[in-house]
């Protein structure tokens, strides 16, 4: 009897977990989000030379450029990813991604960019 109860509760917990994991939108890895949403402009290697740049009037940032990237605070980088270039008085060609990426995923991208430039704010 006890064993059956345990099994039943375990089944309940398992199905609850299943439902939960199905409903929560997946948190994707930063490198995967970068590949999907950013490399089309910033380039497969993050050098600012993606396939879309040919006819763009403002060129995307080179994310491996430590000098440029260290001039921005993490808060500004978060903001520009979530709300787009215009939010920090930059080009409208840098799109807003807040409708596809969660805040958690955007924080992940900020950390990913810091790895790519091997830099932090001010250095």
């Amino acid at each position: 009897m006890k064993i059956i109860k345990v099994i039943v509760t375990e089944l309940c917990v398992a199905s609850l977990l299943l439902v939960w994991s199905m409903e929560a939108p997946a948190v994707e890895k930063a490198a995967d989000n970068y590949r999907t949403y950013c490399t089309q402009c910033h380039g497969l290697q993050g050098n600012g030379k993606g396939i879309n740049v040919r006819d763009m009037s403002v060129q995307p940032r080179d994310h491996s450029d430590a000098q440029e990237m260290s001039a921005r605070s993490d808060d500004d980088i978060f903001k520009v990813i979530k709300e787009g270039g215009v939010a920090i008085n930059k080009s409208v060609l840098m799109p807003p991604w807040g409708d596809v990426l969660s805040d958690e995923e955007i924080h992940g991208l900020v950390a990913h960019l810091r790895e790519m430039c091997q830099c932090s704010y001010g250095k």
Partner: protein
Amino acid sequence: MRLIKLWIAAIMLVGSSIAGAADGVAILNAQCSDCHNLTGPAPATLQELWSRKGPDLFYAGNKYKAAWLEAWLQKPVRIRPAGMFFADHVKPGADGDEIDAATLTAHPALFAPESNAVTAALMALKGNPDLITGGAYTQGNLSLSSGEMLFDKFKGCLACHEIEPGYGGLSGPEVFTAAQRLQEDWLVSFLRNPHAWDPMVFMPNKHLNDADIRKIIDYFRLLSEEVAQ
């Protein structure tokens, strides 16, 4: 004797056109479902997005214009310069990333009777009906150039879409044929919220208002007319 022959021919014609509608579904299931999702839902994870081999067709009847479908299926030409997912078809080059044409394959083509039957079957696929408002688009008589300014400059759409062959961005579909291909009411809905149709798509939501959306759709019409000339 002559009459009987005619009679038989007439019966065969009627018979084949009835068979046509049914065949359309059969062809879709046999020749198209490997690459196209005919039942939904759209990808919900990046893994699913990356493994998508062709555009989702489960809402084809709410998205495409039948006349365009029927013609394109017989003579398919490329719409997405860098394929379904650009990263699979791009390689680093001396001056930056470039399209790796060798990785792009030609789309299978159908003969006219099959295309006719498949078009009918596709137009019956009406996924996401709740996202469509019939008559949402009304043709504007505004200066078409305001749509051009929005698309090319103020909203940054040009970054990912070509507005004429060889000019514009490459990761998204060309838009100079959009007016021939796409139903206006679908465009209204998609431009209002692309992720309602395709949650993971790598197009941003630019929060266009209704007036902007109409001007942009008018601009697509202008582009199609230019390309047709």
